[in-house]
């Protein structure tokens, strides 16, 4: 193998053969080392969240990746190709004309879908969290009604400490119940100020400088989305939940989590919080 080991010969055959071998070995080792180095850098830069969402989004089914405008019926069947970040999406921009218009689309009032409350005074994230602007300009972030019902009274949500950075679509909270853990994605960019004082929200967040709401659902769109979500959930759980269905006028149970077996609950959490 080396010139100083018996059996080595200085001829073309040996040089080509061993040359190819050492090249292959170097490329393999180099590539693995490069991947390790890049991982190391990613971890140091605290970009794990981004990576997480990137790979998680890849695994979503086309159904789950359906564009918000397809859910409302504005567009024919379409899958999101921007990992649910509509902020730079040309189609989204074209349909909404401007961010301003988007901001005004949010109104007030209370809507509901099959018994799940969808207050219209807030923005919804597709991972079942919402954002509401408080009077002081900070943001309140909380779980929506479906998320709340899923976790029920026994469930807990672990929130990040004050000062933690949140970024859109990156895991922010961890929901726990019955030994099932699920990551909850952050709806906004910002810094956690601390737990929210009102019972509804989870944390209070100082928005990042370029804070925008373009990527969040609002108004009627949110209601349509919620219906779509309930439908999805119901289909996924159909096998175990029996005949009663929302379409027949059924309503979502107040403590949904308790009605579900551990396995179903696990599936439901994955579906709702987009944690695959």
């Amino acid at each position, binding site marked *: 193998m080396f010139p100083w080991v018996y*059996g080595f010969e200085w001829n073309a055959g040996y040089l080509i053969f061993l040359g190819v*071998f050492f090249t292959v070995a170097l490329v*393999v080792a180099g590539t693995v080392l490069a991947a390790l180095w890049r991982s190391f850098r*990613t971890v140091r830069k605290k970009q*794990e969240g981004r*990576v997480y969402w*990137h790979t998680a989004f890849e695994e979503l089914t086309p*159904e789950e990746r359906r564009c918000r405008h397809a859910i409302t019926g504005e567009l024919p069947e379409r899958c999101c190709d921007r990992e649910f970040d509509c902020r730079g999406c040309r189609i989204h921009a074209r349909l909404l004309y401007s961010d301003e218009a988007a901001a005004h689309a949010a109104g007030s009032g209370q809507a509901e879908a099959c018994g799940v409350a969808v207050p219209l005074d807030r923005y919804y994230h597709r991972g079942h969290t919402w954002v509401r602007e408080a009077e002081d300009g900070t943001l309140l972030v909380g779980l929506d009604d479906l998320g709340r019902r899923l976790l029920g009274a026994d469930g807990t949500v672990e929130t990040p400490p004050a000062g933690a950075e949140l970024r859109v679509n990156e895991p922010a909270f961890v929901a726990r119940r019955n030994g099932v853990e699920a990551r909850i994605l952050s709806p906004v960019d910002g810094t956690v100020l601390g737990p929210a004082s009102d019972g509804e929200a989870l944390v209070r967040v100082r928005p990042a400088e370029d804070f925008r709401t373009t990527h969040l659902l609002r108004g009627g769109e949110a209601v349509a989305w919620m219906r779509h979500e309930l439908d999805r959930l119901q289909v996924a759980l159909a096998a175990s939940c029996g005949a009663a269905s929302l379409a027949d006028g059924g309503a979502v149970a107040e403590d949904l989590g308790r009605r579900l077996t551990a396995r179903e609950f696990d599936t439901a959490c994955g579906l709702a919080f987009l944690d*695959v």
Partner: protein
Amino acid sequence: MVDRIDEAWIARGVRRAPFSRFLLWAAPWAALLLLGAYAIFLCLRDGLFHTNMDNRYVFGLWIFLDLTVIALGAGAFFTGFLLYVLRKTELKAVINSAVVIGLVCYSGAVLILAVDVGQPLRAWFTFYHPNVHSMLTEVTFCITCYLTVLLIEYVPVFLKNRRLKWKPSMLVFEYHLHKVMVVFALIGTLLSFFHQGSLGGLFGVLRGRPFAFREGLLIWPSTFFLFVLSAMAVGPSFVALTTGLAEKITGRRLVKNEVYQTLGRISGKLLLAYVFFKCLDTLLWINQTAPERGFPAHRFYEYGGAFGTWILFAEIALLGLVPALILLKPEWRARRGLLLGAAAMACLGVTLNRFVFTIQTLALPTMPFDRLLLYWPSWQEFAAFGFVVAYGMLVYSFSYRYLTLFPQERELAMTEARR
């Protein structure tokens, strides 16, 4: 309670059998594994007299097994090549499964090779004091490198386990490794190409064995290229076959039909090309190579029985041409049963080809006063064979249960539920 013990390890959105059922499935394989381990232990402790190999049958069941699983395991490199290099994106649905199959096949082959050699402790000599003119050196280098590559390819599949993924550093490493996968796919293709080829060359260069000897192209005999082509042809078939079997055994839909169609189509085309070149090679061998070395080719088939001309016919026509035609005709290919049947035939064909090159080559006498000898493996050989099969089944079963071998499974499960 036992049934739910490992729930936290199973991916969300897919259904797996209760743990007890899984144990029930794994137990016989584990038993076979233990028996095989005992046989291997005997061979390593006492020597190879535990096998029925002899000075004529220097290669027996094990080398045949090696050649076969490596040919079938070619599905891994070729699917990777199709996906990452030729961008057949639909094959993403089976790439993980193909990687696991490749890993199982190659590691099984290396394992059995380590038992098969008389002095396994000296295995490193081949690396340290290589004779680069030997096909076996090429085989050893390539198989080791490619096994390393397969292990690296397996790492992201493994790290995507639900529990492991929870650790951000694992996930990040998986992500970056996945990003450079094209490099491994390319290197794997190169290695596997040479490796399959040199396995073919292994017999093609035996100038003392006119039955196996073939004329060369550059420094390689024609079998070098035929082995590569045949492995490429049956690789996708084997992936389709295993996927089909996994669907049958688990009772779930794992990949979309288009994946089968793509695999079948590619396999069919390559198989046809292989059959063409194999015929060409056989004609050349019958009319030129063998007679030139003093052995008229008909003498090889004079013994009849297990080694009559039927074996040539079965290898080329029955298990080569027929499956190729089935796989090429879209209407036939569209029928799952026919498609899998043809895939199975193609796999059998390549198995028969490897059998011919290992066992038949050694069975035929070269010296005029010698005779045809037959060989039947000992229980230790069968048990060690069983060890590899059981090992493969267990690794695949565990991988299927805890890792995402078929990314489309979740989607298909939901579509099914909607229906």
